[in-house]
């Protein structure tokens, strides 16, 4: 018992005061892109060439589809003019798929749900459907003392019957398609779908492989898109809090 108390003292209080205060994020974190269109030489096409997921929309204007982007930073590395860079701003979650296509440093972040019934408490069932376990890692940490998800009234529950929606990760493989649809069907209405990570939004680096879908977006209506490969835990938390109107 004394040892437990001594350990408790040594470990200290570790919950971050988010969202009142933002912790210092790593300087090398590749978050929201900063696009300076004036600097873009347009025709050079170097960025389109190196992009592994065709996230840079070809055309006159430099545009990045964050629903396809895996935030590898290859475009920023190759651009001779510095027209694209990645800032360490973690806020990326949006309500509409089209809002993920950005051409400046602005991004239209997610709105709160119009329906207020989820405002005080919301429960999610997580469905892992063919990703790499990276997104699951960063969802799992939200339940640790650092982020303490439940203080916002958000809980990840064991049964879809007890939930208000599902958090989907992965491109939804053919082998997981029936289970994903079945889990969604088991959630009582009204219900929500949150697509977490580039795979769930567009198929990610596995896009167009016959063993899977190109994301959960192919299968059901999505209410919140959280891009990243994987998204930083704060990106996920920021998105969920916007959804229930606790930020923004």
């Amino acid at each position, binding site marked *: 018992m004394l*040892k437990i108390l001594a350990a408790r003292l040594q470990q200290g209080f570790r919950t971050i005061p988010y969202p009142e205060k933002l912790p210092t994020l*790593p300087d090398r974190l590749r978050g929201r892109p900063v696009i300076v269109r004036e600097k873009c030489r347009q025709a050079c096409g170097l960025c389109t060439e190196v992009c592994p997921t065709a996230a840079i929309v070809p055309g006159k204007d430099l545009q990045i589809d964050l629903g396809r982007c895996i*935030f*590898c930073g290859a475009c920023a590395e190759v651009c001779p003019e510095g027209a694209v860079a990645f800032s360490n701003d973690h806020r990326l979650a949006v309500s509409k798929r089209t809002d993920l296509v950005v051409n400046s440093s602005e991004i239209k972040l997610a709105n709160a749900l119009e329906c207020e019934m989820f405002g005080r408490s919301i429960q999610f069932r997580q*469905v892992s459907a063919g990703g790499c376990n990276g997104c699951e890692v960063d969802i799992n940490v939200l339940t640790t003392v650092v982020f303490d998800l439940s203080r916002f009234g958000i809980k990840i529950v064991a049964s879809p019957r007890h939930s208000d929606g599902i958090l989907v990760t992965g491109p939804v493989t053919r*082998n997981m398609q029936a289970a994903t649809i079945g889990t969604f069907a088991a959630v009582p209405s009204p219900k929500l779908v949150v697509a977490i990570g580039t795979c769930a939004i567009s198929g990610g680096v596995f896009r167009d492989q016959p063993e899977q879908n190109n994301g959960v977006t192919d299968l059901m209506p999505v209410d919140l898109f959280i891009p990243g490969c994987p998204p930083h835990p704060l990106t996920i938390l920021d998105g969920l809090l916007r959804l229930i109107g606790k930020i923004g």
Partner: protein
Amino acid sequence: MTFTDACAIMNGETVPFNKVPCLPFEQFQKKIIDAVGQKSRICSFFGVKDINCGDAISQLQLIAVIASDSDRRLHLLSTIVEDSYPAFTPLLPQLHMFEREIAEQWGINPVGHPWLRPVRCQPSDHKPEFFHIEGGEAHEVAVGPVHAGVIEPGHFRFQCHGEKVFHLEISLGYQHRGIEKALIGGPHKKTPYQMETLAGDTTVGHYLAYCQIIEALQGIKVSPRANAIRAIGLELERLANHTGDLGALGGDVGYLPTSSYCGRIRGDFLNMTALLCGSRLGRGLLCPGGVRFDLDYPERVEKLTKSLIQAQEDTKTAIELLWNTPSVMTRFENTGRVSAEDCRALGLVGPAARACGIVRDIRQDFPTGQYLQGDFPAMPPVEIMTGDVAARAMIRWHEIQDSLRFLLKLVPDLPGGLPEAAGKESKQTVCRPDSIAVSLVEGWRGEICHTAITDAHGNFLKYKVVDPSFHNWTGLAMALRNQEISDFPLCNKSFNLSYCGFDL
């Protein structure tokens, strides 16, 4: 034993493919059985078409990568089979999953294989058959693919008598993305990123194995500084996962202090990786030829060192509570025991094998890069390695301390020089044609084995990935024999195997 006909290479080396002896089947069979009998084991076993098979469509070349502990070399052997061949599994259980995989991928029948089920089930094709026990009081429990926690999908079938588990069958494939198929003809533009996502929690481990393959095939030499930074990434990955798992083991027996502290400390390790490269999982840290991010400023080195020292203190108080709490230890001890004999027969790898007292570690047996310096690792005394949950927990704690000591020595004293191979043009170089390369890395779950075979143009004809989980899932099934079904979460977490790394 003599391996005179085999082609022997070092870890991370390449040879022309025609140097790999193609033996008549009986000779191939005998050599492999003899080798395994003499403390060698099979790292990888797979089929490839189109090289020495001639025009016959039904022919397949089987390739075996054998790790020999006696001479610390990797031996390559091959043979040609048609339609069917006598299965190795009855004599060498460690090949059972490989043979099922070959049967599934190529339609070649290993005759006499005791349980030829699909490996990555395709539910639309047919309903998979499960091992079944009949009897008045025997009953079956089916779990998954969607589980209760935030965890990957898999299906588990327990054959029980009351609470007691007679047999557990593990049926995977739900995460199958077709990666090996997509790699054929590569390396493509997407290839490096798919390598980083073979198993997201082992980003550095798998990507390092890939980098070693490319470096072997393109003849690139990595600078000492890059090797040091790679080792930092690999050890931070090990630290994060081992710490997280020890916390989860605490959680599974209802011991919350360790569970909540370790959950947080795991995040601290992930943040150290992010300090290095911006990604908590180490995405983008490495590249063939070196690393993409340097530990450039003294402040960065200082911050990392400080965090490591803090973590050393934090892990000590959080984890040692486990060993001092009798209610935890009674749940850990004698639960989920795997015997050393079973471990050897099944070819288990990594901490799961070391917990049975079988000392195998790539960092020590087949070192590359920074590990060639030889100051790694220190094995805990074999007598405490009893093969149960307690041993699998204890080995992780030892590895956490070893990795922290290793990093605290390495980080403040990084070798100088450039973090990338001289001249970025190396990226454009093509791979050596008609060659085979093998790369092993000790990831946090154990041995990662990548094997690449190139065609006449230097493109991948076959790229075979073996995640440690491919060997170890059967170890979990064995651990559950004669256990209470309620001990499954505890046993499962003590292994914490990868679904996506297995499913590919």
